[in-house]
């Protein structure tokens, strides 16, 4: 951290120094991983938003006469159901498309809940230090010692499954990364002159936190949010797979994998297709997070 090298990219020296925004835009356009990742995320987000327009069938309509139809590339497949149907005769492609909605909205919701908890604790601990910091560090240690998935299962079991409960519980269990990063960054920032200058000009602790500290944490928070998005999506799929997350008939990829697993060896696509969707979405989020980290902190020491 001794030297922040602002000129790591190979651009010709220009007379006008580039603003941080211009620098980031340039780095973003040269970052393959970021472009692929954000491409995946944007595409899947559009699919989620426009699901009713894209989906060929209603994902909830069951049809006993067309159960377990194979996908179109199978000799017995048909173009009417591109990816076949499930054991209740529902169009698999439509369910996958609607599943994007569930995954992304729960991912966004849970990552936001975690952000609110983690950033609040991190900034408060980093800014005030002392016993506040000790208390928060204890909470962190306690949280890290908890078996996350087990606790989530137990909580959902007790409270009862609904989309809001799943969002809340995944969020409440995923704030440690935010806390660790924002706490360290706040400790560094609060010793910088501009924070001292703000205090010297009469700013209250609340003003210092909102105006001096938080705006400088935004890049780190965005990066963590992207990573947590992927983690939360996987957590939702795990809970749904285990039967304590999203409940049928809502199309969730985790749930679809669970429903398809009995027939896994005869109709592998029932498991492979939602699995692939999950994989694509999570790798998209991770590539985007990786890219954002490189773009906002090119020294690679975030």
């Amino acid at each position, binding site marked *: 951290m001794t030297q922040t090298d602002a000129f790591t990219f190979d651009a010709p020296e220009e007379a006008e*120094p580039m*603003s*941080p925004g211009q620098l980031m835009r340039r780095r973003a356009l040269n970052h393959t991983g970021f472009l692929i990742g954000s491409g995946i995320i944007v595409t899947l987000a559009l699919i989620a938003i426009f699901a009713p327009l894209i989906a060929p069938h209603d994902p909830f309509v069951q049809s006993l006469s067309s159960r377990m139809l194979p996908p179109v590339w199978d000799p017995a497949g048909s173009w009417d159901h591109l990816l076949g149907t499930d054991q209740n005769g529902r169009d698999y492609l439509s369910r996958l498309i609607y599943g994007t909605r569930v995954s992304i909205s729960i991912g966004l919701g849970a990552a936001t809940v975690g952000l609110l908890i983690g950033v609040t604790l991190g900034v408060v601990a980093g800014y005030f*230090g002392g016993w506040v910091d000790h208390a928060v560090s204890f909470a962190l240690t306690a949280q890290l010692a908890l078996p996350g998935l087990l606790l989530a299962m137990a909580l959902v079991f007790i409270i009862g499954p609904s989309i809001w409960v799943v969002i809340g519980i995944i969020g409440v269990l995923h704030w440690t990364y935010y806390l660790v990063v924002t706490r360290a960054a706040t400790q560094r920032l609060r*010793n*910088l*002159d*501009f924070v*001292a*200058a*703000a*205090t*010297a*000009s*009469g*700013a*209250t602790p609340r*003003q210092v936190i909102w*105006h*001096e500290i938080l*705006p*400088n944490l*935004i890049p780190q928070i965005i990066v963590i949010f992207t990573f947590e998005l992927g983690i939360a999506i996987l957590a939702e799929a795990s809970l749904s797979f285990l039967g304590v997350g999203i409940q049928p008939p809502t199309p969730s990829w985790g749930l679809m994998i669970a429903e398809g697993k009995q027939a896994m060896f005869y109709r592998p696509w029932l498991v492979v297709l939602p699995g692939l969707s999950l994989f694509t979405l999570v790798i998209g989020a991770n590539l985007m997070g990786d890219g954002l980290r490189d773009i906002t902190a090119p020294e690679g020491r975030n």
Partner: protein
Amino acid sequence: MPLLDVQSLVTEFPGAPGGPGNRAVNEVSFAVERGKVLGLVGESGSGKSVTGFSIMGLVDRPGRVTGGRILFDGQDLASLSGEEMRQLRGRRIAMVFQDPMMTLNPVLTIGTQMTEAITAHEKVSRAESRARARDALGQVGIPSPEERLSAYPHEFSGGMRQRVAIAIALLHNPDLIIADEPTTALDVTIQSQIISEFQRLAETHNTAVIWITHDLAIVSRLADDIAVMYSGRLVETGPVSDVLTDPRHPYTAGLIGSVPSQNTRGTRLRQIPGMTPSLGRLPSGCAFRTRCDRATEACATVPPPETHEGARGFRCIHPVHPELLTQ
């Protein structure tokens, strides 16, 4: 009554566990009148910045003020609550920092930062605070202030940033400005402009200024009074013209002697031998004696008491030019 009256101020940082604290500021007393500029001079680590932060009530943990009184406009600052102290900061006592590259928040526009400094103390509309910010920028000589309000710190040069910092300090017409080496990071021409700017503004607003620096040339040009600090203690105080032409303390004499001038061209610069001792291992008696060519065994016994001579004061038992002493 002086505007600021610092009496036997002690600011300590914890030393070795169980041992006594390290006194970064040790029994420092001085006063500043309205409209006057006090130059607080010393080497790095002599405690001059800590003195400034002690007045502001902003000494970094784990350091704290453990002794003495700071009277501001007749009021003991130690008796104020945290909120009353906050009200004072920025409104009646303002501070300008050393490195203009670091004192502005890089992610907020100048306008936002100035508006915040205003609304920290007054409930005014956005438009009015913006207008005040614009006027303050114009006052410190920033061209087209209206447009510059929406610029970010990286779009300013170092000198311009320091002007912005000064404009922020002046927003509430403070009674006292503590300037902590505000020109050290700037080149000489900009330095000169900033100093003139300060002089003009201090005069028009009748503001008292404590100018913390290690640069005697700036002090001789700007300050009315000088206070020389060494290892946490004030070793010499008095009117600038007297002290700089006719120093009493060997340390002050050494500092003056080490400034290059036309007359010393071609000869080796005089320098003070040795280094500032660390606070944890100060020599007994006079802290300067290990580097002083006038030191005797008597210097090792007790810290020298302050000798007064008219408006001047110094702490040395073997002062320079003793034949001029009146006592």
